[in-house]
């Protein structure tokens, strides 16, 4: 899209940090503000930023649309799966106590996976939304 060298280099440099920050927000949600939702948004933003500097096609090469659509579903399934795991191990639906012999540890484990599910779905949806709206622009009016 743009040939600005400075912007390109800055974008390249920033990308890993933004993704790292997303991971930090994801896993630090237990101790500070943050969690799956916020992390998902930040991760998606990083890629959107990439798309803006290097063009939509480049971003779609890095994170293909098909993959995003899969991840959309995977996140929800992961979350719901934790619920079914609770059932399988003899508890109620979404029961984290039974996920580990030590109930507090089980809670921790449950929250971890659930937040991961939220993060995946949110990141995928936000990215997908951007792809949809941005991709539409090229042939607007003739659909």
């Amino acid at each position, binding site marked *: 899209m743009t040939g600005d060298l400075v912007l390109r280099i800055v974008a390249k440099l920033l990308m890993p940090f933004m993704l790292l920050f997303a991971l930090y927000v994801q896993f630090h949600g*237990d101790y500070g503000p943050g969690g799956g939702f916020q992390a998902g948004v930040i991760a998606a933003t990083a890629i959107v930023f990439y798309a803006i500097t290097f063009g939509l096609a480049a971003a779609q090469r890095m994170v293909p649309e098909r993959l995003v659509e899969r991840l959309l579903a995977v996140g929800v399934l992961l979350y719901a799966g934790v619920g079914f795991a609770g059932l399988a191990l003899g508890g109620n639906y979404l029961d*984290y106590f039974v996920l580990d012999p030590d109930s507090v540890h089980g809670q921790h484990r449950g929250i971890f996976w659930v937040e991961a599910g939220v993060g995946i779905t949110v990141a995928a949806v936000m990215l997908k939304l951007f792809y*949809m*709206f941005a991709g539409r622009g090229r042939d607007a009016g003739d*659909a």
Partner: protein
Amino acid sequence: MAAVVVALALQRNLFGAVVLFGIYSFLMATVLVALDAVDVAMTEAAVGAGVSTVLLLGALYLVGGMETKPLVRPLAPLALSLAVGAVLAYGMQGLPEFSDPQAPIHVHVAPRYLNQGPKETGVPNVVTAVLASYRGFDTLGETVVVFTAGAGVIALLRRRQKRK
């Protein structure tokens, strides 16, 4: 914040309105920080001021920028909105005072989250504990809402493979 909202109501340039909306969301996030709701503020900043604005701008690029029509019959809607506001104002007279520690929401249900939450779940951020564990099903629902929106937008905006 009120001023921004009023400006938003009057602004006829859609681009301006979107920018004002971003400012509004950011102010909202600031207020939320002041109210100790850090998790919410972070989300509002990322979503309200960030994602929403990007989406709005993206859509605006597709639909074009000016609101051409002047206001149509502005009085009836105003009266209706004010009536709703008045009803609400009547009801709010009976609500607890700001920061009243004896208010029902501070004495019922919530104390267990604060006192037992970290011990029961091993997570000191009580918001995360409530979100993911105590009310985990709400959050599953919330994730599904996001999923629904994503899949819905795909259904609406996917380009046909071959045209004509």
